[in-house]
Structures are given as structure tokens and as C-alpha cells.
């Protein structure tokens, strides 16, 4: 069992880790210097998912999505949707691993073979999965403060390099730009769909809803500050051209003449947060797989799932460029389907079924 607080930290880490690295450069392409507003619109996807999932969880307490699917869509439908979700979560985990490998190779270890990095990551993920969700929850409690700390230190460190004229004229791409810029990041906020499998693990789920909504708002706020920094330091057009704009900004951090070029240090907490994200996805993949296939020992899935994903991610994405293009173009289209659309459809199904049963009860 994990606490509501721990759950909220996990969710924040899940969104923040990818968000801080990819959100600014991707959303700034569309949104111009109003990009700092985009996270607040992307947030909507997350809010919808949370509302729908907590509603369904209230109706089916202590049950995961796989558990209550048969009651909504019948056994065959449940198997199909369940299997699709297994693939989706596993694919998310795989993408995360590849993202870590990409960033590590691009920034820290340009000459090291990818295989070595992959193995180090997969062993960490496997070990953490064996330790269990509770350990992960306790781990995030130790490092959650690194999220605000990262943004605060970055703000202080680059304060001198910010050009305030980059913010004016405000909203140079208009509100439509801001909305377009919010589309891709909304798929990261939608990743809160893992709640469908995490909620039954929460010890006191009464306060989940408000706590999670606040978590989303705070995370969006942090990402917004990050985007503001990037606009101020790099300028909109330069940032939109850069693969990892946040990392570029980290290079500008300077405290006096002694502490400079400390960008690599920012990657340490990021790496931990990203590992947590990957572990969460693999955890949910393992749980949903074992529940859909009715396996008694889910742990036997850990090693094959993780290692297979290493091979496939290596095969799918050859370099950092492919990943960021994938995240920008391919990913939002199908991820939003699983993250937002399916839960909404399930919610509607539930409502229709309610109406039908009520009618049935009324007719005799």
C-alpha cells in the first residue's frame, strides 16, 4: 500500500521528467513566446483522465481497469482492451528507456556503446520492480524535492542570462498557437492513465482526487516556469530549433566564476525521475499483463518484458532525432487514444449501462 502523498509525487515525477526535457522545444514550435501558457492547457487532458478514472474507481472500488473491464464491455472486449493496454504501457516504458538512452548518449557519454547504457538502465528497472511499488513510493519521497529544486536552482543560475524582450510582444503566435503548442504535451499529462492500476494500491483513496489535481497544477506550473526560462535565455525560434532546449539552458547556469558548466549535474536528478517514470510504466505493464492473462506470479514477467523492450527500442529508434520526432508527431496521436479517449468511452459505457439497468428495473 502507498499513501496519497506518495502517489502524487509519483504522478508528478511521471509528468515532470519527460515534460522538463521535451515540452518546451516541442510546444514552442507552435506557440511562440506564449509557450509558457501551454502547460496549463495541456493540463486539461490530465484532469479529464483523473476525473474519469477516480469516478470509475469509486464505482468499482479496489479494482484495477482490467478487473472492471468485463463488467463494462463484456469478457471478449475486456480481453482485447486489456491486451491493448498492456501493449500501450509496455510501449510507454520502452519509449522512456530509449529517451533516457538518447539523452545520456547525447549529453554525458557520447562515445559509450548504447548497449552498455541500456543494460545499466534495464538492470536498475528490473531491480526496482523486484523491490516493488512501495519501495518506489518511498524512493520518490526521498527525491521529490529535486523537482522544484531543479527549477529554482535553474532560475537562479540563469537569471543573469535572461533577455526580457523575448517575452514581448506577448503571445506573438496568438492564442491558437498556445493551444496548438499544448496538444503534444497533453499526451504527457494524459499519462496519468496509469492511475487505473495504481489507485487500488493507495491506502486512503478518499483524498486522491483533490491531491492529484493539485499535483497536476503544480507540475504544470513548474513546466511553465521552465518554458519561461527557455524563452528568456534562448529566444523562441532558437529554442524551437534545439532538440533538448532545457539542456541548452542548463549550460548557461553560472554561480560566480567558480561554478560554471554544471549542466551535467542537472541530469542526475532528471535521470532518477525518468527511471521512476520508466519503472512505473513497466510496473503497470506487468500488473495489467498478469491480470489480463490471469498469471499467479507477475514477477516472472519482469525480466522478459524489460529486456525485450531494450532490444525493440534499439531497433525502433536509431538516434536522438528519431525519438524527438516520434514524440512530436507519432506519439500524441495514439497515446491520447489510450489515455483520454478509451477512459471517456468507458465512462460513457458505464453511464449508458446505468440508464439501461434502471429502465430494466422500472419496466417489470
Amino acid at each position: 500500500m502507498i499513501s496519497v502523498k506518495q502517489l502524487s509525487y509519483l504522478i508528478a515525477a511521471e509528468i515532470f521528467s519527460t515534460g522538463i526535457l521535451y515540452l518546451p522545444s516541442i510546444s514552442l514550435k507552435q506557440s511562440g513566446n506564449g509557450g509558457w501558457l501551454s502547460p496549463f492547457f495541456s493540463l486539461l487532458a490530465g484532469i479529464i483522465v483523473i476525473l474519469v478514472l477516480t469516478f470509475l474507481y469509486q464505482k468499482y472500488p479496489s479494482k484495477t481497469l482490467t478487473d472492471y473491464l468485463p463488467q463494462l464491455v463484456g469478457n471478449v472486449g475486456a480481453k482485447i482492451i486489456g491486451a491493448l493496454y498492456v501493449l500501450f504501457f509496455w510501449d510507454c516504458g520502452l519509449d522512456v528507456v530509449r529517451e533516457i538512452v538518447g539523452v545520456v548518449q547525447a549529453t554525458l557519454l557520447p562515445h559509450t556503446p548504447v548497449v552498455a547504457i541500456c543494460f545499466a538502465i534495464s538492470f536498475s528497472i528490473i531491480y526496482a520492480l523486484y523491490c516493488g511499488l512501495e519501495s518506489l513510493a518511498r524512493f520518490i519521497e526521498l527525491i521529490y524535492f529535486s523537482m522544484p529544486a531543479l527549477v529554482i536552482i535553474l532560475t537562479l543560475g540563469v537569471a543573469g542570462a535572461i533577455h526580457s524582450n523575448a517575452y514581448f510582444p506577448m503571445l506573438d503566435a496568438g492564442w491558437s498557437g498556445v493551444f496548438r503548442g499544448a496538444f503534444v504535451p497533453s499526451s504527457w499529462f494524459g499519462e496519468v492513465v496509469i492511475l487505473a492500476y495504481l489507485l487500488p494500491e493507495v491506502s486512503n483513496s478518499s483524498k486522491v482526487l483533490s491531491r492529484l489535481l493539485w499535483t497536476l497544477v503544480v507540475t504544470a506550473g513548474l513546466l511553465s516556469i521552465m518554458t519561461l526560462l527557455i524563452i528568456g535565455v534562448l529566444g523562441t525560434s532558437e529554442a524551437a530549433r534545439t532538440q533538448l532546449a532545457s539542456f541548452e539552458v542548463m549550460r548557461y547556469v553560472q554561480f560566480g566564476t567558480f561554478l560554471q558548466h554544471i549542466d551535467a549535474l542537472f541530469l542526475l536528478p532528471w535521470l532518477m525521475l525518468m527511471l521512476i517514470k520508466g519503472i512505473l510504466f513497466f510496473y503497470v505493464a506487468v500488473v495489467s499483463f498478469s491480470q489480463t492473462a490471469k498469471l499467479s506470479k507477475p514477477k516472472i514477467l519482469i525480466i522478459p518484458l524489460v529486456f525485450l523492450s531494450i532490444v525493440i527500442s534499439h531497433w525502433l529508434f536509431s538516434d536522438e532525432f528519431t525519438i524527438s520526432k516520434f514524440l512530436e508527431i507519432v506519439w500524441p496521436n495514439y497515446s491520447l487514444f489510450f489515455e483520454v479517449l478509451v477512459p471517456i468511452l468507458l465512462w460513457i459505457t458505464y453511464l449508458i449501462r446505468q440508464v439501461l439497468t434502471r429502465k430494466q428495473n422500472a419496466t417489470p
Partner: protein
Amino acid sequence: MTTTNDQKQDDQVHIELDRNEASFKEMFLHCDDISYRLIEIGTSGQRGMVIFVSNLVKQDLVDAVILRELVGGLRDVESVSIDQIKSQLVTASDVRTITSLSEAAQDIISGRAVLVIDHDDVVLSMDVLGWEHRGVEKSENEVSIRGSQQAFTENLMNNVALVRRFIRDTRLKVERNVIGDVTKTPYIILYMEGLVAKTLVSEVKQKLKNSKIDKVLDSGNLVDSLRENIISPFPIINRTERPDRVAALLLEGRVIILLDNSPIALSMPSLLVEYLQVPEDYYENYFLQSFIRLLRYVAFALSLTVPSLYVALVGYHHELIPGSMMQSIMSQRVGIPLPTIIEVFVMELTFEVLREAGLRLPRAIGQAISIVGALVIGQAAVQAKLVMATTVIVVATTGITSFTLPGYGLSSAVRLLRFPLLLLTGFLGLFGFSIGIFFILIHLVSLQSFGVIYTGSLAPRTWQDIKDTFFRGPGQNQIHIPWRGARHHLDHDEAPN
């Protein structure tokens, strides 16, 4: 069935002294330290025999309490029974009657005197313990400037008495038992009733009962049975030789095990933060002690990470080192044959060897070793251009910071983990370093000591946790169970307000 009955009868104390004597002599064949003192009781020619191990009993006590009373006090009586002797003659405070020969033999080798007489099928076992032992001395391994300086000795009951002097409360419970199929070593479980979770006490008892150990020579032997399947370099059972620390641990709802012949008490459950705290923290000014405690946390982190961070910076990420410092490092690097990782690894290993050598040698030579090792070899290696002076500084810093850790168990875990972390960093730079730290952290948070989360108070939940984890806040004189916020299956409902 018959065989068991026969065995039972063989083990019974016989009515005739001669048969009993023969049985004892057969059991103690080739045990020349056993004394058999034959005496005549009363006027009817009834005989008695006192059996004991010469140097385990206090000879004066045997003479005064038993022999003088028996021989002198029964001169006019015709014959007596063990019960009469027990109630009227023997003045020892701890006496009991036994009907089994093997039990009597066990008592004899445990240091009691056993009286066997004619015409009675019970024997009398009397406590006349009095072997030579070390007196209470100053604690050497857990030194403190303020507070009690006493340390435990090898004498079990004395150790209990030392603790009792700190907690004069009837709720302090002392349960005695024996462990080790061969050594049959007595041990004592101490706990505060009401503060400790009952499930914890029974879990400890059960684990000790289930453990199949032949020999228990030190409390360290018990640790393996108590840890069960936990594979970890980190200590999850704390140890101490200070009675005041034991008292403090008891008052935090822990179970303490004291073992005969061992001056080290075991305490469970234990938390990671415990190994960074000393009793003195609570006796001295809290501003100062908070600062020192914080310093210990920093030292803990440094002693684990400094060598690896150094390798990562010098070997992989030069840009992180400020320019002027990098220049100085680079100028030292010229002509050094080894890569940084091997340099640091070899130096760390040398340091560990020196440390071990200094520890095992007599104290006077031990110091010489550290001087030769640290100054001579270090200096010579730098001058010979085998290692960089910075590397020597780094290794020395690591060593010194590791000495600030009060808990020996934690500092040895850090010593051990430093090497894999170093290797990971050597191969994968800062990335390897973070993977290593991730492994260590996730391992730490997954650890549990008797149902209590090992890193519990590191992620503070209450003000009290914050006050007593990284700092030593004021007002720590109330009873507080540190894992109450982080409790797992322990039931504290029976705890007082």
C-alpha cells in the same frame, strides 16, 4: 515407547548416592575440573556429595554456605531430606530442587553447585557462581565526552544490572533463555512493556527459538538467525556496548538482546538514522549537536561518493571542474602512468589494507603502520609520479569522513559499497554514478528491520521526525517511538500516552 521410558528412568535421580555418583562420573568422564566433595550428614551415617566446577563457583561461598552448614548444622540430627536442607540449612538465595540427572549436570557446568544425598531422589542446585571476570570499564569503541562512560562486560547479569540502573521501572522486562545446541549460552531479552510492540517481542523470540545454531560465542552469531533472508550490506540490527544507549533504545520501544560472554548488546528494529546518532547528541546543547549531526550526514554522503565523483569529474566531465582547478590537476597528471579509475581504486584498496593492518596489530605498532602507510607511502608515491597528489587527498578525505560515522555497521557498509560505485563510475561516468546511487537508494528504501521501514524517518512525516532526524531539536525528553509515523505491521496501540 519402552526405550523412551527407560531413558527417562535412567535420567531420574536415584535413591542411592552411589548410583548417582556413578552417573555423574560417567557424564563427566575426562572432565578433571569437576570437584566431588563427599560429606557425612548426621549421626546415622547418611552421606552427601557436593558437585561443582572448581573455578566457576566461588570457593568461599561453597565453603560457607554449603559445607559448613551441612557438616556443622546436622551434627545432632539422625537423617535429613533435601527439602529440609533447602528450607532450613542452605543460606544461598537462589536454590532449586531437580529430579533429572542431565538437568543437574547442566547446572553444574553452568557454575552452580549440586548437592546429592542418600535416601532422597531429588538433588539441590545452588547458585554459588563466582568466576573471574573483567570489571566494568570505560567504553572504548563508542567514546563520548559527556554522559555515562560505562561499557558492558562479558558478565550477563552484571550487564542487565547496568541497564536496570538507568531504567528503574517495573515495566522493564528481562527474559532469560538459552541458545546454541552445544554451547548452551544464556541470553536475555530486554524490553519495555507498553512501549514495545508485543508482536515484535514474539517475533524475536520465535526467530531465536527456530534458529538451528550449534555455537553462539558472541552476540554477532545471533545476527544471522535474526536477519533471516535479508541480503544487504547494511546493518538492520544495531549493536552497542553502552548501557545508557541501551536504555535510550529501550525507551524508544526496541528489543535488546544481551548474550553471556559478549559485551555487545543487539538492538532491533533499527533505522538507518540510528547509525548517525550518538547518545551525546541528547546530552549536549542542541544547537551544537544539530550542527554536528548534520555534519555527520554530509560526511556519510561524502565517504560514499567522493572517490567516485572524483573519478567521474577527472575522467569524464572535466567541464564541471572550475578552470583554475583543472589546470592544477592537469599539471599533476603529466607523467602519471595509470588511468584515474585504477589510481583511485588501488589507493582505496591500499587504504583499506592499512586500516586492517593498523587494527590487528598491537596499538603501538598500529600507529607506526598508519604513519608509514599514510605519510611515507603516500608521499613517496606522489613524488615517484605513480599517483596524483589530488588522488591522495581524495582517498584521505574519504577515510577521514568515514571515521565520523558513529555506527560501525554503517561505516563498513559504506566501505564495501564504495568499490562497486567506483567501478560503475569508472565505466560509465556520472551516468554510472547515478545508476549506482539509484541502486543503493532503492535498496535502502526496500529494507525493513522487523517490520519497520529502514529509512522511515528520512522522509519525515511529522515535526517530531524532522526534529530528531537531521537535527537534534529541543525537548527530546519525552518518550517517542521513531517509527510510529512509518509503522508497517507493528501494533503500537498498547503504547502509553
